[in-house]
């Protein structure tokens, strides 16, 4: 018998998990820092704000740097910093529920599609149906039924994300099930369910992780747009979109009014995009 030892010596350094390697790049770190700052601001809102988000003072449209109101006040004399921080908090609360909800539902649909050809057709056509509605029309339709509030926003975001995740996972499953190691597992007697959970899913999951970062970005936009249009969270509770919407009539005399939410949304979206891009590059390598 050909005696052979495992000739490749074990590498001195154990290769890092690709996700960790991705997040350690400059791109990944910048993204994480931006996201981290925004999230921290939202979490610590009650400590940092100093005012309640709906407390009114006598000063209307005070400029930034006014004592007690570092970012100034809005048209109703409410502290802008407090409204911004609580707005972030409200936004994060929405997207942190809505995106995972959409992802989980989408993945469940994809698994159902993988189980049977008829289920596949049904699921595919359902996705097509959802995708046929532009996001805002869907938002208006949902609010028309449920009325404005936090729940419709969550529902709209989740609905918009279901086909995205569903199609991504379905494609992944189809690609992986054509691979030779799946045939090998089948010939090796492994049961269908175990092939799906143990062999196919771990290999199809990478794009989903990237998609979560992308979808969080999209969710920030959807929430902002819905609040901006007045079909989102009900005033006076602040969200980023609501503050922005409120600032529009005063854009000429008080540009600082709009600056807070704009900068925050930009930072959050940029951070999430950078993170997604970093993960994507590392995974595709």
């Amino acid at each position, binding site marked *: 018998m050909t005696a052979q030892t495992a*000739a490749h010596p074990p590498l001195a350094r154990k290769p890092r998990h690709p996700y960790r390697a991705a997040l350690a790049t400059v791109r990944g770190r910048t993204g994480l820092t931006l996201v981290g700052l925004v999230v921290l601001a939202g979490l610590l809102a009650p400590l940092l704000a100093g005012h309640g988000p709906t407390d009114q003072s006598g000063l209307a449209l005070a400029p930034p740097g006014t004592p007690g109101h570092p970012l100034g006040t809005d048209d109703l004399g409410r502290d802008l910093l407090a409204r911004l921080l609580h707005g972030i908090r409200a936004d994060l609360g929405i997207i942190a529920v809505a995106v995972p909800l959409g992802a989980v539902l989408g993945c469940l649909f994809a698994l159902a599609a993988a189980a049977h050809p008829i289920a596949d057709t049904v699921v595919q056509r359902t996705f097509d149906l959802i995708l046929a509605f532009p996001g805002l029309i869907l938002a208006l339709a949902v609010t028309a039924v449920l009325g404005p509030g936090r729940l419709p926003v969550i529902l709209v975001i989740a609905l918009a994300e279901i086909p995205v995740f569903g199609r991504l996972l379905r494609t992944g499953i189809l690609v992986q099930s054509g691979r*030779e*190691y799946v045939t090998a597992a089948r*010939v090796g*007697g*492994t*049961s269908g369910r175990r092939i799906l959970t143990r062999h196919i899913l771990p290999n199809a999951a990478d794009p989903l992780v990237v998609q979560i970062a992308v979808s969080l970005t999209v969710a920030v936009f959807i929430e902002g747009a819905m609040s901006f249009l007045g079909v989102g969270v009900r005033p006076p509770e602040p969200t980023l979109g609501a503050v922005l919407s409120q600032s529009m009539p005063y854009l000429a005399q008080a540009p600082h009014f709009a600056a807070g939410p704009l900068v925050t949304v930009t930072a959050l979206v940029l951070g999430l995009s950078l993170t997604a891009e970093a993960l994507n590059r590392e995974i595709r390598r």
Partner: protein
Amino acid sequence: MTTPPLLEVQGLDVEFTTPDGGGLHAVRDVSFTLRRGETLAVVGESGSGKSTTALALLGMLPGTGRISGGSVRLDGEDLVTAGEDRLRAVRGVRIGMIFQDPMTALNPVLTIGRHLDEVLRAHAGRDRAAGRDKASRGDKATAGDSADPRTGGDSAVPRSGRDKTAPRTGRDRAARRARAVELLHLVGIPEPERRLDDHPHQFSGGQRQRILIAMALAGEPDILLADEPTTALDATVQDQILTLLGELTRTTGTAVVLITHNMGVVARACERVLVMYGGTVVEDGPTAEVLTRPRHPYTAGLLAAVLRLSAPSGTRLVGIPGTPPDLRLPLAGCAFAARCALAEDRCHTALPPLVALTDTVRAACLPAAERAEPLPPPVPPTPLDRPAPGAVVLTAEGIRKTYKGRGRRSFTALDDVSLSLAAGETLGIVGESGSGKSTLARVLAHAHPADAGRILLDGRDVTRPGRAELHSVRRRVQMVFQDPYASLNPRMTVGEIVAEPLRAFRVGAPEERPARVAELLRLVGLDPAAADRHPRSFSGGQRQRIGIARALAPEPAVLICDEPVSALDVSVQAQIVGLLTDLQRDLGLALVFIAHDLAVVRQVSHRIAVMHGGRIVETGGADELCERPRDPYTRALLAAAPDPVPVAARPSVARTPEAVSV
């Protein structure tokens, strides 16, 4: 030989940066020259740096690769320091390139005419821009070599459009089309005028490779770099393409650098050969000389490991033990020293220079420089004592399998195939791509159902088994796959992969499985410590051993091996073939051994079945079939198999099938 070399490579070094920041020295101090009209083979195993060298010549290194030293001189002009614009002018016009896979190198939505037209248009534009430069250079080149065929070959071409200062596009297009027809004719595509408007899928693999050669020739290059041009092709087609390349060198005077891992191709097509190992050139000389009297132990080992068609059934070859060097580590001495049987102490410490041993042969080996007598001849293949086959275990009768295509077209992959297999017997199945041999393997392993016919296992009909019966059939019939990279789940550790069938068939208690996995890994010659690592940290040969361990886990009676060695290097092939033979002897396995390489099949098989177009055209004892083939297709297959014997050393009638048996 007074002409100056066309291409002169001096001390070329190429480095890559690995993802974790380390360096990988892929090519180390490579030097060679190429003369006009010469065919040079660059031969080596995977990771030897042969493809990287070729890409470095054209400044086309992928990813993080960079040339860290040395020079590449084309007619005296250094290409390493040349700018990207200059390199673009060299690519295609002076150095053409042919790639390995003709199936993916053509754009499926464009006609062949469009492909050729695009290349011709690109060259025409560049010629106009650099017209004066090229003309003057051409003069210089022809001055030393009056028989420069580039001028002769062009005379028939209508190229008036190109010389006009303001050419009209209509005339230009007609001229390009005429030239495209001429190029297709040159590479042997029948009815070129008509086929110009066909799409790539309407051509066979060999024809597509011909079209790619035509595209590479469109710029009338001085040098053709062919990177494994026939590896993806069948033996008979490979033979045709090599003949074509030979004719092109003769008629157009183009020099060819042929990169290959196949010693048979080297012997068949090239005058000179450069043997590479671990990123270094180990030997360089005329093919006839190197193949008959190798100076470097690696060349000798490589030649000894090549399976020859003349080797009778039931013999064993010695592969080169060990695995290629890790290119991430610095090289202290000879790259081959760790695997070399003749290594001396100085081999591990001193870098051997490439020195001329005779007028024509250079080798990088310290002891070889002092050795007067030739290296000891390779150990002749030793016959094995194979136990006689036992009772029949697997029978297939009239198997038929049809795949439905789009529309009404369907494809018959298996047409009335019958075979039987006894315990302890190896049945070789040989055929070219599309002959249905892989489909047969999958039908026998119950990965796909058969459309018609019967499969009997131990006398029981198992053609359409129920769920429980399928489980018991799979336990008896296991499979080894072709691609050791695709057939192992990258997310599982080796231990988990090998334990998977144990778990599925409930072999032993869960706590006994690690011990059984270790035992299986030892059985296939791997360190049991491998169980904790992922497949990616193993070489191709080691991965194939893992695949074999997985197949053996449920203690099957029948092992179906679908091209188990065709993705592996020559020296590793011999190891895996030896392992399979040993396992068969020790475990009494019945083996179905599928391959396209007749030499491998003859060596391992008791009996051979030749498949063609979904049918078995001939079956017989392995030696009997190879020496006295009856079917014309078997004869063609035998004739096309490249043997690593220099053309001059072959009997002159060697190409006729009757003489192959000699």
